[in-house]
């Protein structure tokens, strides 16, 4: 019996021994991630983390596709031909939430705020610190601005009875579960949001120089250019004018293209006119063709070769209004309701506007359509295109519009800016007499729609100008009071937050 007892003791001792050694073995750490409290403690960490914010802009829901394609589908210059059943509902303006970048944008904003809070604790030189804060300021302004114009009324046109305020301001980082759980923000006022955006832009202008990192990164020039856009949307014509002028004077990154190089500029990786461009360099960074930017706009593999298809759908094509404005006509004309040419290739007549060369007949995939070729896999692989966010033409068109709307309109200045652009886009353009009144406004409107066709501008222009949504293909006729102008705020944001108000109509 004693023998058994001692064996038993031995067993328990052995068990205790194993126990103590195993407790340590529960200490298992991830190998492909690092703890959040050490990630941003040195300059390398900050640099890597800032890169991530730029990378976030590549998301399909942001500049990777939707801010370009969905905006066009909603606007009145594009038509969804139904291929792949894509963008049909967006094109009919029947979708509650055509844009879905709320989460992605706030994710990037949180990253920005976490980095900004970590920078004071990192040892580095003043110039680097200033650049970090300047770039982050620009990015924070850009993301807030994109949220604001999508999810809330743009101050230059609001319907007071339906105005539920602007978006949530994100100026603090969320480090712990506890803080995040107990966060119930309200929608900020338009003034607060645009105030924050402008304050970030001013900071970026003062902290950035143009000697830094080119068009793929934020610069003083990009901050000024963004400032002119923000001011224009806000209806602050003086500021829009002065920011555009400051940017044009500063220069340094890119330059306006001319009739000679405008079209070829869209065939190079970096558009020579870009002030800020989201860089998408490799195939690994984009969805496969049908889900990406190129596949949404065209079936062409290469420019001028309409015999093979890239396997996308090419569902979103220009409508007849845009084609007419661009000076493109066909014999025979396409089917009136499908804009399809069937299997045959029509004869095309083109006007003098070089911008129409960015549209051509696509391959026969359930019939042919005329397709936009601004995004053709310029970086050497299908679907891999940088996305220009700010380019030189916008500075002039912003300024022209601002000058025409100043309390004392600068008619000469506005015309000079307009003609500056038209000279560089229309072969053999002769400067006409100065336009005034609605003729001037109409020309500015027209030039914006031609210049930025299929770049995602039109929808937001319609919204800030308070235009009704009128299309013939498909038949859409909505007044400018339609709630469709404001994207539905994600239910996840509204459901869990008693302080949050959904947009009107949802």
């Amino acid at each position, binding site marked *: 019996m004693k023998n*058994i007892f001692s064996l038993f003791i031995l067993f328990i001792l052995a068990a205790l021994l194993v126990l103590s050694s195993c407790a340590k073995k529960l200490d298992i750490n991830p190998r492909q991630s690092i703890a959040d409290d050490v990630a941003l403690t040195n300059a390398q960490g900050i640099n890597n983390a800032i890169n991530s914010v730029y990378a976030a802009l590549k998301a399909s829901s942001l500049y990777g596709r939707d801010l370009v394609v969905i905006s066009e589908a909603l606007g009145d210059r594009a038509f969804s031909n*139904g291929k792949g059943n894509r963008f049909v509902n967006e094109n009919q303006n029947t979708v509650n939430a055509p844009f879905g970048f709320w989460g992605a944008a706030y994710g990037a904003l949180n990253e920005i705020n976490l980095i900004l809070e970590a920078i004071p604790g990192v040892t580095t030189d003043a110039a680097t610190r200033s650049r970090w804060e300047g770039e982050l300021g620009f990015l924070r302004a850009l993301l807030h601005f994109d949220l604001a114009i999508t999810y809330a009324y743009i101050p230059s046109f609001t319907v007071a009875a339906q105005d539920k305020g602007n978006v949530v301001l994100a100026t603090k980082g969320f480090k712990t579960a506890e803080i995040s759980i107990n966060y119930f923000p309200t929608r900020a006022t338009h003034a607060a949001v645009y105030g924050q955006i402008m304050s970030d832009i001013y900071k970026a202008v003062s902290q950035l120089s143009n000697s830094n990192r080119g068009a793929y990164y934020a610069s003083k020039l990009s901050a000024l250019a963004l400032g002119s856009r923000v001011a224009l949307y806000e209806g602050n014509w003086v500021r829009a004018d002065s920011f555009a002028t400051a940017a044009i004077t500063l220069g340094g990154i890119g330059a306006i293209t001319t009739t000679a190089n405008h079209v070829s500029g869209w065939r190079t990786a970096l558009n020579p006119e870009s002030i800020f461009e989201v860089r998408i360099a490799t195939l690994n960074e984009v969805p496969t063709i049908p*889900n990406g930017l190129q596949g949404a706009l065209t079936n062409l593999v290469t420019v001028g070769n309409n015999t093979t298809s890239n396997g996308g759908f090419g569902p979103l094509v220009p409508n007849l209004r845009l084609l007419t404005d661009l000076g493109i006509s066909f014999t025979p004309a396409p089917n009136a309701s499908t804009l399809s040419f069937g299997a045959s290739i029509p004869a095309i007549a083109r006007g003098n506007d070089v911008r129409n060369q960015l549209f051509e007949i696509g391959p026969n995939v359930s019939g042919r359509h005329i397709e936009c070729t601004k995004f053709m896999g310029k970086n050497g692989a299908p679907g891999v295109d940088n996305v220009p966010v700010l380019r030189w033409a916008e500075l002039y068109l912003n300024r022209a519009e601002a000058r025409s709307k100043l309390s004392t309109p600068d008619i000469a200045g506005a015309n000079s800016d307009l003609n500056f652009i038209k000279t560089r886009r229309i072969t053999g353009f002769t400067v006409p007499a100065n336009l005034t009144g609605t003729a001037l406004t109409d020309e500015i409107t027209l030039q914006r729609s031609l210049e930025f066709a299929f770049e995602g501008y039109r929808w937001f222009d319609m919204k800030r100008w308070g235009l009704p949504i009128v299309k013939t293909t498909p*038949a859409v006729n909505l007044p400018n009071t339609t709630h469709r102008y404001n994207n539905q705020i994600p239910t996840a944001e509204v459901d869990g937050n008693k302080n949050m108000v959904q947009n009107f109509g949802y």
Partner: protein
Amino acid sequence: MRRAILWALAQLCLVLNVWAQRAVSGRITDETGSPLANASITVKGTNTGTTTSAEGFYTITVPAKATALIFSHLGKMSQELAIGTKSELNVQLKTSDKSLDEVVVVGYSVQRKKDVAAAISKIDGDDIAKIPVPSFAQAMQGQAPGVAVAATSGIPGGAINVTIRGVGSLNAGNTPLYVVDGIQINTSLSGSIGGSSSSGSSDAVKTQNNPLSFLNPNDIESIEILKDAAAAAIYGAKAAGGVVLVTTKKGGSGKAKFNLHMYYGQTKATKLQQPLTTQEWLQARIEGIVNTSGNVTTVDAARAQALTEIGQPGTLTDKEIAALNSTDWMKAAWGTGQIKSAEMSMQAGTQATSLYMSGSYNYQTSHIKPTNFERGTFLIKGSHKVSNKITVDASINLSTFSQKANFGQGGGNNNTINAAYAAAQLLPINPIYRPDGQYYGLSGSGDAWYGSFANNPVAAQELLKISVRTNQLVGGVSGTYRITPELSVKSLVGLDYRLAQVKSYLDPRLIGGTYDAVRGTGEVGSNWTTNFITTTTATYQKSIREVHNVSALLGIEYRNDADQQISATGNSFPSSDFQYLNSAATPVAVTESWTGYANFSQFARLGYNYRSRYIVGFTLRRDGSSRFGANHLYGTFPSVQFAWNASEESFLADAKSISQLKFRYSYGRTGNDQIGNFDSRGLYGGGRVYNGSSAINPTNLGNPELTWETRTEHNVGLDLGLFDNKILLTADAYRRVNVDLLLDRSLLPSTGWTNISQNTGSLMNRGVEIALTVRPLSGDLRLESSFNFTATRNKILSLYDGLQVLPGDASVKVGEWAGSNFLARWAGVNPATGRSMWYDINGNITYQPTTADRVFVGTVYPSYFGGWTNTLSFKGFELSAFLQYEYGRRRFDNQLQQEARIGSSGTNTHHYIYDNRWTTPGQLASIPRPLSSQTEQVSSSWNAGDHWYYKTDYIRLKQVTLSYNVQPEALKRMGFTAVRLYVQGLNLWTYTKFPGYDPEYTGTSSTIIPQAKNMTVGIQAGF
């Protein structure tokens, strides 16, 4: 002096004793006279004992005062014989009535079924072996009440969802713990390796890889399912989803016994869908154009347009239209598959050593090419008795299986090249082959595709190559030291190692972004999991005069699981002749990942019963897991069990009709740790890239308070046997509450985070399970009928912060089912206009339902399910039929919804949709009018609400088998011990109103391979 006398007396006694010892010998046989090896013989009231030789002989030395010997053997009724003056005792042991003396594996030890107080279901290996499927989990379907088994698709060897007693957890996993011969199996899937070929897309979903496929189902001796928390609590924090204990066959003794099993069969789709012909499609399209234009476009103009869209002159006459090509892509893409299997096993042994060996080869092809499953397994188990005290056991199971896959068959991705998805939607005007016999519409052919599906799925079945090969090793070594007859210590070291290798080649002859546009894409990936476990247990068992029976178990366990993965993708191949990555000109992506966790546990079990009449049990387990926050590493999980065997009471001993009557009650607590390995940590991860530079971003928000989800469960049960167990009933009722749910708590998106894992909320499950077996006929003509039935429901009891609805997912609401569908109700088709209508929250018709109009419309979990087996045998013939049923699910079928697009230019339509569409005002139709894009102007999207959610109730003849056991006389002459011939059908008949492919699926069913119909013939022979 007194002392000296006592000493002398004692000495004398000793001498007398020695003198009085004598030998008894004899032979133990079964009812038929065959010798029983390894039967045990013990002297009553002592620990003295021996076992029989291979020929059944024994010799034992017994002390003079010994009165009787007890003879016992596994599966036989023990017998006690008085010794008297005899020196030879020959015994015939009768086969025990299984239901009485059956032994049940309860986790780390066994118990007599009689003494079990918790809810445990047992499935015999024979019942598993009867169903020719690669994974034993699938063979469990319908066999045990409370165990819902659902194949995610009909992929041979594909993933199986096993849910024991409903879902207890909202976001953490509900997967049961699988333990094979004491080794816990890593059930994380590794079939979707890769996905890196193009970020942001799920095109690279490969095939489903079921980690349970490693085991040849025919090697299984029995499966025990620990259903209630009390039974499972011995596995603590791993056991909230229940525990499935698999015991494989053991070595025999004596002469080697061989068993051969071969079968061959064919598989076919249970149901083929009928897409429209070109002519029908044109009709629908014309209606679509006219309707979309608001009746502005005339039928003639629409007809011309529709014809143009498919590349025909708009002027074709009716006769010419009737002659247009109409391809049945469905028929071309779907075919028959075959099943081949051969396996052989051997059981042999000597008195000290026993051996089990088996090898098997299994090959199945799906009815949709090229999906298949090919497996070879090899199992060897040995046991050696080093001495009376020490036994060493070792086993090794080697298994290799490979699966070829159809592109995108993993589901989820609406891929236009997937045979299951595309065949139903590709426009029938497109031919499969060109006139010269080559595939139509390959890259560079210049062939025009009409419709959205611009690729040849039949060519893709041949050209796209996707395969996964898995090599798995599950093995263990254990030593048992029997310190005394009552006390023994056992140590087990086990390993479950798996290497899965994926290779895919997207052929440049096909059209598209990953095919010709990039001149082909190749991907290889490897995933290996190393799952190490070691367990040491001490068991103590003591019976005091067979009145007081005590048992105790004490153990410790350590498990360490690591999962590592690499993959590489490249494109730009010289031509389709080159399919290895070394020829790829452009490297696209490389990835590597690692994850792992460890568990450390201590556990104990105490049991006591009084004459097997009053039974008490108690277990306790303390678990530590690396997954949780530093403050909450450990959790404690107790259980208690009580049972009263009324039939053992003297007042019922005479009740002839009642052969068995037991009442059970148990209460237990288990834990759930099925969350991500590092969910409690605040983390920054890499992987993002901008302008060629790497980036880091926050990937996880830390929550150091994260801890176990706990499940508590009360179970009451009744076991009743009537008329010599001709009627057997087992009934259980349970109520179980999971608290501290590991919930993905939504954060406001404006925080920049989407959710965190948090312990919050509670969920209740309750249910009734009944298993009834009746044997009305015995004798030459025998009939046995087993019916099982499960009724279950769950209810969300609470969420966090007093919320009634989970933010971000309004379908999770206090008082409602987990897994509810929360949608606006579809109100049918307006007979006047053919438009879809919905109900608003007040029950009024609306065309634009809002989020406020959503109501609860059914749940994705079944309320009732079960199975019914009938076996009729006469002489050597046996006919068995197994029906399986499920009721109460309502689910979304994306495949069917996609096929419901009617009137559009791009896709073909399901005939059911066509037949039921609205065409004329006043018509009562169930399908709205055809439209180019299905969605009406000023209306919600055509697929809004619950219109495309279907009831998937079904009754299915899962298995029917006719077999013949060749009579023994004929066999003996040929040297066989048993020969069984059978023919078997699987899924031959199904009753369902579900219009889609098949009601047995999980997820949204798009692109999956539906269940198949099998017919097999087989032979089993023993010699």
